[in-house]
């Protein structure tokens, strides 16, 4: 089987997948023997002969001649036919089960005697269509046209040439107000302020427009706008998705990194390198390290299925997400389609998919702690001291709380026990002093039957403040097993001195497993402190040892039991923290408060000294071996695969690193360099096209993340290549490209229809006018906040939720029923949890970030109207808008109307509009006018 598989792969790599015999709609199959024979022969040639031909004779037979295939065909008896069986069960062909109608047909053909229409049959060899986007970029000559007088730059020459060829002409220039609004929304996602409008309308200098463009590109709002586009492309979301969908509170550093990168006009190649290998190229640079958030911005299954297959599948899904997103975002390819078989449309062999997977084989979901400052040796020492002190005080505080908790529990249960029940936060086992070199904690049972979790194992002698088991004192941790696949659950976490679930260990045995500490020398110990989630912000009560044994040993072989759960109360009822506080004696309470205050201070100092930030930007471990998976099935591993890039792009070598077993980060860096190599024909084209799409409403290639045969061909191939070549020649500077596009005449034209244009090119593919576009969800929400005067321009940092969040095992999100000022920041800063969308953003096609969204839909629905007219956010902001008008225009209704129009539309009302507005105010309120303006098409379109 193994050898036939390899041949199958090899052959399909060369011959490529068949276009489609899928065209066998049942109706097209003639129910007679001749047609059956012809159709059967076609299926055999396409799907069986590539391996089972006279040369390869895979499995020892071939289908070229009927006589040679009798044994496996069993003509006349489909029940005995091996072919009929393997195709019915889907065992063959290896690239996937045949469609049902083909199976039915083959069986019928076999049953009726398996007549060959012609002999010998020959394998069908189909070469995949050469892909235009794999061809080298060539800078074309700039065409000349009759409209060249109007051209502002080279872009127009290409656009005009296509127009002229189709007997179309460019539209007149757009009105100045329309143009200002267009370019301002486009570059910053915000409407122009009325001051900006006045300034521009009064600036008659020839470069007035260019000055506006420069101002906009230099504003921080630019990065907030274009960063959001990039976040769409890379499926950035701030919750895990899948079953539990808990939030990722620390995903935002990547979002800030993206915004910063756009604002800094980072060369695109650098942007790519940082996102794939920021841990290497930006090591220790706080502004760059979060870039690797790119790798883990997608969905991650936090539950999984605890079987071998389930664990492998979970890992395979994570890697698939990274490979597919890398392929789509940078290369505009659907590489994920080559996971189970060679790509059906594009020259991407299955092998390539797994070579790319191997590049990322060391990447895992999770947070890394970012150090925001470089430390001196003295800093380091102080930081360490503080960290020990924090642990000591946390223990003290925990002890006070345990005492009080026990008090509550006893009061509640009214039973007397000698020792408190085990709890997830902190447990103390005291025993007569023993001298030992080894300490072992063995779990015998857990409260939920699951694999036990131990967050920290501490050991103390006489000195109750000196943890002898902590790794920094030289102690080593080992364990009976480890639940695979969780960077936050690791054996070294047993004694890393850091409390909390995120630094804990879980065994791989249900309800069992031991953790062991080896001290650097013999120690006298008399107390063991252990916890399951003892951190500052405890969340977990599961996986708790309820029966256990603590043993010590001199040699690691002979053990003496020093403590067990014996004598502990059985109840583990969860007791509310407020009850615990209430049950403290005044003295305890004072002490507890003092310690808390000290802890707060220490933490402030620790943060000052070594400002750190946890960030969901992936963890990097040694690369695991990657295998080609037959049909993408994790249980059918084929040969081991070494890292590599796409093999069919001939302008650049697919060998990434000289040494195939290169260290993990080298692989990613090498791939980043391969992607950003100027000889890579895809990267620049894809990026240029994305910019074009966001500026002109549709891409030159209208399928921005699919430059394959199944995607669309470019509408202006020469222009695309010209811009790509220009982009590469100028260091991959994105702002330069923006400027070219928005300074072009094509961009500055009117969006009005002309009869000629509508008749010849209603879809405006050739750009005889500029499209009129609806504000995207975020731009709409931001525009409302700008107009009401409430937009809070604070940038960066943790996002604000537009939902109420609670966790009952899985996360539950509910929309807000009121919107506090905290939510009045720009929409790019809302916490974009998956599978939940704010009603306003959701109604206006904001993607929910489970899938990559390289292009947004722009639907028009009645529910949008209801949300805009009646939604809580909108009515609230209309009220603020009215308040603002009153403040700025006073109590005179005509002045109010004037100001309202200026703020919403950037212009004064016409007399007719004014009269209508005055009547509206008179019959109701200023609020009514404000609601109308925020709902008007003039407000919604740009």
């Amino acid at each position, binding site marked *: 089987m193994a050898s036939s598989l390899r041949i199958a792969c090899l052959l399909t790599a060369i011959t490529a997948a068949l276009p489609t015999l899928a065209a066998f709609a049942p109706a097209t199959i003639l129910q007679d023997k001749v047609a059956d024979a012809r159709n059967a022969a076609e299926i055999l040639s396409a799907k069986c002969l590539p391996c089972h031909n006279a040369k390869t004779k895979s499995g020892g037979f071939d289908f070229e001649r009927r006589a040679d295939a009798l044994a496996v065909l069993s003509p006349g008896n489909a029940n005995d036919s091996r072919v009929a069986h393997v195709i019915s069960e889907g065992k063959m062909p290896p690239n996937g089960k045949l469609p049902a109608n083909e199976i039915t047909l083959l069986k019928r053909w076999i049953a009726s005697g398996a007549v060959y229409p012609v002999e010998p049959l020959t394998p069908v060899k189909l070469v995949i269509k050469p892909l235009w986007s794999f061809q080298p970029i060539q800078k074309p000559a700039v065409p000349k046209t009759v409209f060249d007088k109007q051209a502002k730059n080279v872009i127009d020459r290409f656009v005009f040439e296509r127009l002229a*060829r189709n007997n179309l002409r460019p539209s007149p220039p757009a009105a100045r107000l329309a143009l200002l609004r267009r370019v301002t929304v486009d570059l910053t996602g915000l409407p122009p302020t009325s001051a900006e409008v006045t300034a521009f309308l009064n600036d008659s200098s020839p470069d007035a427009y260019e000055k506006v463009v420069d101002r906009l590109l230099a504003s921080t709002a630019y990065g907030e706008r274009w960063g959001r586009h990039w976040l769409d492309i890379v499926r950035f979301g701030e919750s895990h998705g899948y079953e539990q969908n808990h939030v990722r509170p620390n995903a935002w550093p990547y979002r800030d990194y993206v915004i910063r990168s756009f604002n800094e006009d980072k060369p695109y190649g650098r942007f790519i390198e940082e996102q794939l290998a920021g841990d290497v190229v930006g090591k220790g640079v706080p502004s760059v390290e979060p870039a690797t958030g790119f790798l883990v911005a997608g969905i991650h299954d936090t539950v999984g299925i605890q079987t071998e297959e389930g664990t492998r599948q979970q890992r395979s899904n994570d890697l698939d997400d990274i490979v597919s997103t890398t392929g789509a975002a940078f290369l505009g390819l659907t590489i994920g389609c080559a996971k189970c078989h060679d790509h059906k449309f594009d020259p991407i062999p299955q092998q390539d998919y797994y070579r790319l997977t191997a590049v990322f084989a060391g990447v895992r979901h999770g947070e890394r702690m970012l150090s925001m400052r470089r430390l001196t040796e003295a800093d380091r020492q102080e930081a360490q001291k503080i960290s020990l002190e924090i642990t000591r005080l946390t223990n003290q505080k925990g002890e006070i709380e345990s005492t009080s908790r026990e008090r509550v529990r006893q009061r509640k249960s009214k039973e007397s026990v000698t020792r408190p029940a085990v709890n997830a936060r902190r447990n103390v086992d005291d025993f007569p002093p023993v001298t030992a070199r080894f300490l072992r904690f063995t779990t015998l049972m857990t409260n939920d039957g699951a694999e036990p979790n131990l967050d920290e194992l501490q050991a103390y002698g006489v000195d109750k403040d000196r943890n002898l088991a902590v790794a920094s004192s030289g102690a080593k941790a080992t364990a009976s097993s480890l639940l695979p696949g969780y960077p936050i659950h690791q054996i070294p976490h047993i004694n890393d001195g850091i409390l909390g679930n995120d630094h804990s260990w879980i065994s791989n045995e249900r309800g069992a497993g031991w953790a062991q500490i080896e001290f650097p020398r013999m120690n006298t110990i008399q107390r063991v402190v252990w916890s399951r989630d003892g951190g500052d912000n405890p969340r977990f009560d599961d996986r708790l040892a309820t029966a256990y044994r603590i043993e010590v040993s001199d040699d690691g072989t002979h053990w003496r039991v020093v403590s067990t759960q014996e004598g502990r109360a059985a109840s583990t009822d969860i007791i509310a923290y407020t009850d615990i506080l209430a049950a403290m004696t005044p003295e305890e309470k004072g002490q507890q408060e003092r310690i808390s205050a000290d802890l707060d201070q220490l933490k402030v100092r620790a943060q000052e000294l070594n400002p750190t930030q946890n960030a969901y930007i992936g963890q990097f471990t040694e690369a695991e071996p990657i295998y080609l998976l037959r049909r993408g099935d994790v249980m059918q591993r084929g040969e081991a695969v070494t890292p590599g890039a796409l093999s069919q792009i001939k302008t650049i070598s697919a060998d990434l690193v000289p040494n195939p077993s290169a260290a993990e980060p080298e692989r990613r860096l090498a791939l980043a360099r391969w992607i950003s190599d100027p000889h890579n024909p895809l990267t620049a084209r894809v990026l240029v096209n994305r910019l074009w799409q966001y500026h002109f409403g549709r891409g030159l290639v209208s399928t921005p993340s699919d430059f394959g045969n*199944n995607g669309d061909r470019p509408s202006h191939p020469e222009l695309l290549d010209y811009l790509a070549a220009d982009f590469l020649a100028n260091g991959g500077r994105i702002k330069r490209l923006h400027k070219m596009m928005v300074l072009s005449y094509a961009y500055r034209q009117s969006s009005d229809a002309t009869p000629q244009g509508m008749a010849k090119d209603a879809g405006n593919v050739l750009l005889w006018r500029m499209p009129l576009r609806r504000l995207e969800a975020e731009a709409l929400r931001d525009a409302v906040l700008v107009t009401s005067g409430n937009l809070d321009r604070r940038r960066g940092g943790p996002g604000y939720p537009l939902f109420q969040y609670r966790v009952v095992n899985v996360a539950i999100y509910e929309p807000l029923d009121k919107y506090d000022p905290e939510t009045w920041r720009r929409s790019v800063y809302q916490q974009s949890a998956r599978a939940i969308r704010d009603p306003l953003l959701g109604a206006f096609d904001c993607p*929910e970030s489970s899938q990559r969204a390289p292009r947004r839909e722009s639907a028009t629905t009645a529910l949008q109207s209801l949300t805009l007219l009646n939604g809580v956010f909108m009515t609230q902001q209309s009220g603020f808008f009215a308040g603002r008008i009153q403040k700025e225009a006073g109590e005179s209704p005509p002045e109010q109307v004037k100001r309202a129009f200026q703020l919403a539309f950037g212009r004064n009302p016409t007399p007719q509009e004014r009269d209508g507005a005055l009547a509206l105010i008179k019959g109701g309120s200023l609020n009514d006018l404000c609601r*109308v303006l925020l709902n008007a098409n003039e407000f919604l379109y740009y």
Partner: protein
Amino acid sequence: MSHQEEPKNGERRVNRRAFLGEMGSGLGSIALACLLGEEATAALPPQRKGDVRLEEGNPLAPRAPHFPVKAKRVIQIFCPGAASQIDLWEYKPELEKRHGQPMPGLTGVSSFQGGNGNLLRSPWGWKQHGKSGKYISELVPHLAECVDDIAFIHSLTAKSNTHGPAMLQMNTGFVLEGFPSMGAWATYALGTDNQNLPAFVAIHDRRGLPPNGPANWSAGFLPAAYQGTSFNTDRPIADLQSPAGTTPQEEKRVRDYLLNLNRDFSQRNPGHSDLSARIAAYQLAARMQMSAPEVTDISRETAQTLQFYGADSADPLKASYARNCILARRLVERGVRFVQLYCGACASGVDGLLNWDAHKTLKADYERHCPILDQPTAALLKDLKQRGLLEDTLVLWTTEFGRMPTSQVGSEGRDHNPYGFTAWMAGAGVKGGFSYGATDEFGYKAEKDVATIYDFHATALRLLGLDHKRLTYYHNGIQRRLTDVHGEVITPLIA
């Protein structure tokens, strides 16, 4: 190339006449007036060969299916939490006989929450019903009366044994979020017959949203027009009410002034059908404000009907679900294309309390849930039938997977079982009194005519007159389908 080129890339050709026709009949003369003298343009993203041909500006206009069929609309009942196949629908005498014995071949197999104990018989009795003589559990006596209208599929298999992903698979075909729900696909394919109500409605349970929440009725990557709208008789459509304190007269003046502004804007910006579509959308919203309160107002039903469904029940949960069943009927009666109807909510701290996830206390849990489900659902089927609506309404009963025939270690409940479970179909085009497929003698793994959720979806679409392979939408390089690259229509089930 010197000859004139047609724009490539599958640009949408606008059927202006159809659009205007629709406007004239449904969308009002003002919107129509705005269109005069204009040609509609392509404002939607380029349409791909293989996508459904949508009408410009009216994505919900009714469209013909691929084949002529009876079913015009769907009610999909969903019991979240995984309702047990072997305690409701599939009788397993062998399970009863070998109660308390270890299940052969199950040693060492652990399911979702861990170890499995011995075989656990269903705590309820089974009797034959109807002309078909189908055995049904005594837990659902009212539904048992409907067996001759129902086609059971006893051999379903799910890809996940975890609630969230498995529910997504049942609703969207995929275990990950981000894909369109079956209801979204159906409305994308067929539009809707009542422009005054949402085309796709998700009626959630009074106890709360199901696992995954709105992802169950998401439009995924399809345009937002195909997203399900969630409401029930206790919670109306969001933002349906005008802001507090505005009088109807004031509201009318707001709308009129808005209309004037938008008409002027259209005149100044000719040739943008989007602008007209939005004018129409506001009128549609106004009509929805009129129609939706009417449809959710169950008090208009006769006392007899309310009683028939159990809406008068002393159990507030049963009464509430009964009202939701009546709402489902009222919606399809008015031409809503697709209705999801939930009986149960998401998981709570106690398994099986708020939904069908009976891990530890099967008997207590199901004796709480079944009376809620049984009478109202049966009444819905019977009521649809007596009104002639079952003729062209497809009713689906679904859940995300099944439960183990064994007890969960140390308990009287059942763990998750994705290897064999039951769903059923009734109504338009469905062969009643029919059972397809079977699990093994204990009800563990699907054994006879094994079916997938893809098959279930392919069949449901086929009953709606849609070929699941032809109903596609281009997204990120792939013509996506509800059935991915799988699915066979279960033809024996079709009448």
